[in-house]
């Protein structure tokens, strides 16, 4: 691919594995926090951004800022070219068949709401069922609750077992000809479980159901291939895969998007407007009302370039090595219990420590420059399933190293010291 000048060729990345080198790609990781070396382990909330992403956004404002698809002037052409190039990058990133299957949205949350409010309202009615799982993020629960409230459809749930894996028998029982849509996360944000989505998609298609995969947590860890998966919708959030906040994509199969009514009304999404009625643009523009997040799309494209420059096999091997190391070291700590012990996990470890509340763990770790997430992780049904008010969650990115895990373990020893 030839890069327009505002996309820098990703630099500073080695094909081999020198995790410290990855750290150097992320300027913020060099800044001390509370006078300590920053150990950033809250990547499932949001990842840090590499230099190339920051620079792509800066260059866009320095050289090409204008509104897209509107002006005939030079800058508008430049901005449009950059925006549409980012769409092609995302098409390639998830191996979609067509660029017009990529809709820019604010993030996974908006993507799911978009599908619920357009596809869902049109295609799902009374007597129909939507199937979700107990391990969904609130963003893949609430939009469906709103939809069934409005349409009279039913919401069915596949529960999880003690390891944090889906109960297969329930999948077989609850997937019926009534099921119109299965909405499922690729990777659980609170447990780290990687779901067997290929198998689920196949089973769903056998009963004629469509499948939406929430890929917010998967995008930074796994090679996503929507063509191969044959999913009907796939959503992701840029900011969890090294891109800025406020940008993400909805992938939808072309024939589905073409038959979906608009989401929001406004400029950009129409072909003509009169005071008596309007006709709507084709996808993806039908779903992109208003001036889009142009800088965000460009940043997202640059993040895809960054990830592509590493190759996912190398990345997974490294991340899994750190995950296994962390799992071993944490399991060896007295009174520490890992929540989510599936054999198929990526990037995330949730845990609790006997009689020490996660909030206190988080505060003490923070004083050592270690950033983790504590709370219910917007997955309250999971907390209820394990009868926990909250957990501490460590989530990894490509720049995390075994040294980071050693710092974490030292920090946790200090936590135990305070509460001994």
């Amino acid at each position, binding site marked *: 691919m030839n890069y327009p000048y505002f996309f820098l060729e990703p630099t500073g990345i080695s094909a081999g594995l020198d995790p410290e080198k990855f750290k150097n790609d992320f300027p913020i990781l060099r800044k001390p926090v509370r006078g300590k070396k920053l150990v950033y382990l809250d990547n499932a909330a949001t990842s840090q951004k590499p230099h190339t992403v920051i620079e792509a956004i800066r260059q866009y404002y320095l050289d090409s800022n204008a509104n897209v698809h509107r002006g005939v002037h030079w800058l508008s052409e430049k901005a449009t070219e950059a925006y549409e190039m980012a769409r092609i990058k995302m098409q390639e990133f998830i191996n979609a068949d067509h660029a017009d299957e990529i809709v820019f949205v604010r993030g996974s949350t908006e993507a799911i709401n978009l599908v619920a409010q357009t596809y869902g309202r049109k295609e799902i009615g009374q007597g129909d069922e939507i199937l979700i799982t107990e391990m969904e993020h609130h963003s893949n629960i609430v939009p469906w609750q709103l939809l069934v409230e409005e349409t009279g459809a039913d919401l069915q749930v596949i529960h999880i077992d003690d390891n944090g894996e889906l109960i297969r028998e329930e999948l077989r029982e609850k997937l019926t000809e009534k099921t119109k849509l299965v909405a499922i996360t690729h990777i659980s944000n609170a447990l780290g479980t990687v779901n067997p989505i290929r198998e689920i998609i196949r089973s769903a298609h056998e009963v004629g159901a469509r499948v939406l995969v929430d890929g917010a947590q998967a995008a930074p860890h796994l090679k996503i291939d929507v063509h191969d998966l044959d999913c009907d919708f796939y959503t992701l959030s840029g900011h969890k895969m090294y891109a800025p906040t406020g940008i993400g994509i909805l992938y939808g199969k072309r024939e589905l998007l073409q038959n979906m009514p608009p989401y929001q009304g406004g400029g950009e999404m129409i072909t003509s407007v009169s005071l008596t009625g309007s006709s709507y643009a084709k996808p993806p523009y039908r779903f992109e009302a208003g001036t889009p997040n142009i800088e965000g799309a460009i940043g997202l494209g640059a993040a895809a370039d960054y990830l592509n420059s590493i190759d996912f096999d190398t990345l997974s091997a490294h991340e899994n090595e750190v995950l296994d190391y962390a799992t071993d070291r944490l399991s060896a700590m007295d009174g520490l219990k890992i929540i989510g012990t599936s054999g198929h996990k990526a990037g995330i470890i949730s845990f609790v420590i006997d009689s020490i*509340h*996660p*909030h*206190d763990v988080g505060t*003490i770790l923070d*004083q050592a420059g270690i950033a983790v997430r504590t709370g*219910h992780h917007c997955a309250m049904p999971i907390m209820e399933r394990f009868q926990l008010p909250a957990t501490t969650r460590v989530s990894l990115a490509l720049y995390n190293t075994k040294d980071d895990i050693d710092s974490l373990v030292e920090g946790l020893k200090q936590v135990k010291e*305070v*509460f001994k």
Partner: protein
Amino acid sequence: MNDSLRELYEEVILDHNRNPRNYNHTPENANHTAHGDNPLCGDRYSVKLTVKDGRIDDAGFEGSGCAISKASASLMLESVKGKSLEEVEHLFNSVHRHLTDHKANEESDDELGKLKVLGGVKEFPMRVKCAILPWHILNAAINETDQMVSTEQQ
């Protein structure tokens, strides 16, 4: 451990977290109750009071949460038992000021006694809510507000 951490997790706090007083205690003839939570971190408590002749005769709390919120609830009930509602209201205001106002002067803090240890949260803005939550629940119980108290509605 650095100084601000040591101030946050004072021995008194740790003690009340380990052995909370009036915890899971249901006062006889309790006539005032309120619940509250911090939806962001999952802290959740309820407070039960027996108010007689304008005075808190007995009090108890239950629920779960972090060391700061639990110790705060425990210290709170210990100090309000036997006080008149007027005195409690005055105390609530003093505690509120002590936890949130960096300029609160030492003298006015004197009446707080043991409760002063809660001031360690001042250096931890994210934790002020933890310390203050039980006090809001107490307030709601006294005023018989039916609504659930939440740190996110203040």
